[in-house]
């Protein structure tokens, strides 16, 4: 042991936001980052830790039960299958963030699928028109929900519960008594949902772009913070993080590439997630969404048009549900009476909540939908591989949903206890 040396007072001026000597320094190494998020989790700010842990557990269990589970073939299928409900879950994130709920996303996706198939196949209209009709349907439904919610003050729970039933009826009516409308197997939609893969070189380029993009964005941000006299994470930390992301992405690309490859549909989904993440975190409108979810009255007094925020959230939700419906029909190459029914609703909501979006509003990110749907779809795929029918799937998904919501509630209590609620 060296002799007791007194640490000399820091000679360099402290950053503007670190003048209080009680504060920890920003992360300098990857371990610092991990430690910081573990500390936040103990305070009830769980972040992505539970969902990542959940994925690890679920994948391990299913892999042990059936070695096919983590095969490249199955994971490619998983990447396809998660997109339709994932897209719906992305919409659910919007309504949950403003502290509302939409229980009718399944029915709306079913109507959207039926409408698209009817316009495309029965009426033989061009694809653009069919897609436009579906998306317009989503916009109109969300707008109507927003108006009823804002003007009549009906709880969104009730509005969407009514919508759940009503749109199921609309779906049957649009299908004109047919059980199913099949899409042409070689149409663009079906190919997109079943056959189109990113060529391997391009997939690696995308991985490099993603990691490089993360590094560029975070480094420029760190530089601006540094220039403004604020604390910033070290370059070493940022580079390590981006390299880690690159390694993970490259591994995913190469593993999926062993069989069919990276589906374009999955890339599309991730792209939508990224755009939504940008809107929610980097724009004034996104900030107002969180504000309304946290304290609508405070948001109103701050001059935010709260009604517009609610309406936009409902519109985004229904529209993404409509897109999800179209993708579901494309994946199946048919729109039928059961598209969007059964567990679609709850799977979408469960995905968002499992991913870390609070049911109490104002907390969560767009990535929640992506992470949550991986959990939900893994369970579904794993149980299917075990030749267990949907009765088990419903039961297991129900339990997982309950666990996720319970975790959210416990975390909320823990946040209150540690003063972060």
């Amino acid at each position, binding site marked *: 042991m060296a002799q007791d040396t007194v640490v000399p007072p820091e000679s360099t001026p402290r950053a503007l936001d670190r003048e209080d000597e009680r504060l920890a320094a920003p992360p300098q190494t990857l371990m610092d980052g991990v430690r910081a998020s573990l500390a936040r989790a103990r305070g009830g700010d769980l972040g992505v830790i539970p969902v990542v842990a959940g994925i690890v557990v679920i994948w391990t269990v299913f892999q042990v039960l059936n070695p096919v589970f983590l095969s490249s073939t199955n994971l490619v299928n998983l990447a396809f299958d998660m997109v339709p409900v994932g897209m719906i879950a992305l919409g659910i994130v919007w309504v949950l963030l403003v502290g509302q709920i939409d229980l009718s996303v399944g029915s709306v996706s079913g109507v959207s699928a039926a409408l698209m198939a009817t316009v495309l196949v029965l009426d033989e209209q061009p694809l653009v028109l069919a897609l436009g009709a579906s998306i317009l349907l989503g916009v109109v439904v969300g707008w109507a929900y927003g108006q009823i919610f804002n003007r009549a003050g009906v709880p969104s729970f009730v509005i969407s519960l009514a919508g759940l039933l009503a749109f199921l009826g609309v779906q049957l009516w649009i299908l004109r008594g047919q059980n199913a409308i099949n899409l042409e197997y070689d149409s663009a939609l079906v190919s997109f949902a079943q056959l189109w893969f990113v060529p391997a070189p391009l997939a690696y380029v995308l991985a490099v772009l993603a990691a490089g993009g993360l590094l560029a964005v975070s480094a420029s941000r760190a530089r601006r*913070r540094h220039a403004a006299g604020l604390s910033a994470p070290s370059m070493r930390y940022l580079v390590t993080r981006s390299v880690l992301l690159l390694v993970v992405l490259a591994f995913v690309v190469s593993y999926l590439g062993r069989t069919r490859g990276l589906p374009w549909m999955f890339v599309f989904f991730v792209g939508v997630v990224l755009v939504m993440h940008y809107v929610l975190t980097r*724009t004034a409108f996104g*900030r107002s969404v*969180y504000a309304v979810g946290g304290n609508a009255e405070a948001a109103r007094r701050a001059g935010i048009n709260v009604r517009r925020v609610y309406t936009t959230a409902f519109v985004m939700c229904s529209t993404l549900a409509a897109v999800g419906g179209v993708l579901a029909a494309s994946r199946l190459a048919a729109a039928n009476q059961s598209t969007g029914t059964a567990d679609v609703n709850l799977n979408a909501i469960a995905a968002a909540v499992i991913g870390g979006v609070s049911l109490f509003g104002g907390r969560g990110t767009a990535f929640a939908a992506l992470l949550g749907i991986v959990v939900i779809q893994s369970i579904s795929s794993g149980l299917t591989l075990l030749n267990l029918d949907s009765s088990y799937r419903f039961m297991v998904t129900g339990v997982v949903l309950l666990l996720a919501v319970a975790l959210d509630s416990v975390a909320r209590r823990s946040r209150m206890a540690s003063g972060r*609620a």
Partner: protein
Amino acid sequence: MSAPVAERATPADAAGPPLLSLQGISKNFGAVAALTDIDLDVRAGEVVAIVGDNGAGKSTLVKVLAGVHPATQGRVLVDGEEVTLGSPVAAQRLGIATVFQDLALCENLDVTANLFLGHEIRPFALDDVAMEVRSWELLKELSARLPQLTLPVASLSGGQRQTVAIARSLLGDPRVIVLDEPTAALGVAQTAEVLNLVERLRERGLGVVMISHNMEDVRAVADRVAVLRLGRNNGEFDAQAASSEEIVAAITGASDNVVSRRSARRSAAAGDATGTPGATGAADAAPTLEKKEEEH
């Protein structure tokens, strides 16, 4: 806590028109006259405390000033010119910022986000860096100590939240700031923190209207004390010259009231009879009324 009288800044332009002037303001809610014929002047660099019992009309007056409830009758003058406080936005444009008692903060957002809520700095995307720098500058000007601005407001203490709410109202460069019960529900140290902040607002040359229940706080920072009773002006006092008993008498409407009787009883042993006669309106006291008001 109370600062020496000598250090108090005197109103800068006592001769000119007051920054904000209410003349004959009345506000009726249906048959109920919440405010009747209220007069109030606020000058730059002056802290005016508004005191009154429950139901005296303090909150209604705040809402009139904030533009939430436009007055039924009367004139509002800013810099001697008549204006209409028709909406919260109009009041803010005229330089009147209001910090309500419930603070209206979003607990899930961090301090910077709350400060700039609704007025974010953004050419295109949000400029977090510029907002955080500006927040630190502002809080430093106010000598407010907040450890970190990236924590959600939920993790702040009551005094810190009050600081954030007041700092936010300053971002719009107001000239008059209305504080509704800024020290209610705060601990001793936090109250002192907020009172320091109020003094700093005065030093910046703002007109401060402070609604309060707490006589000690009022006497600690206010230059003038305006008393409301049953929706009417019931006397105006120099905060330093007037005794607490005088002010309490004006609040309750009687020199012989619960408060004075209590203090008389307590000091009876010392033979020091209190119960200074009230300045105004002492005569209209009906002992039955005060009892009712206390029950609110």
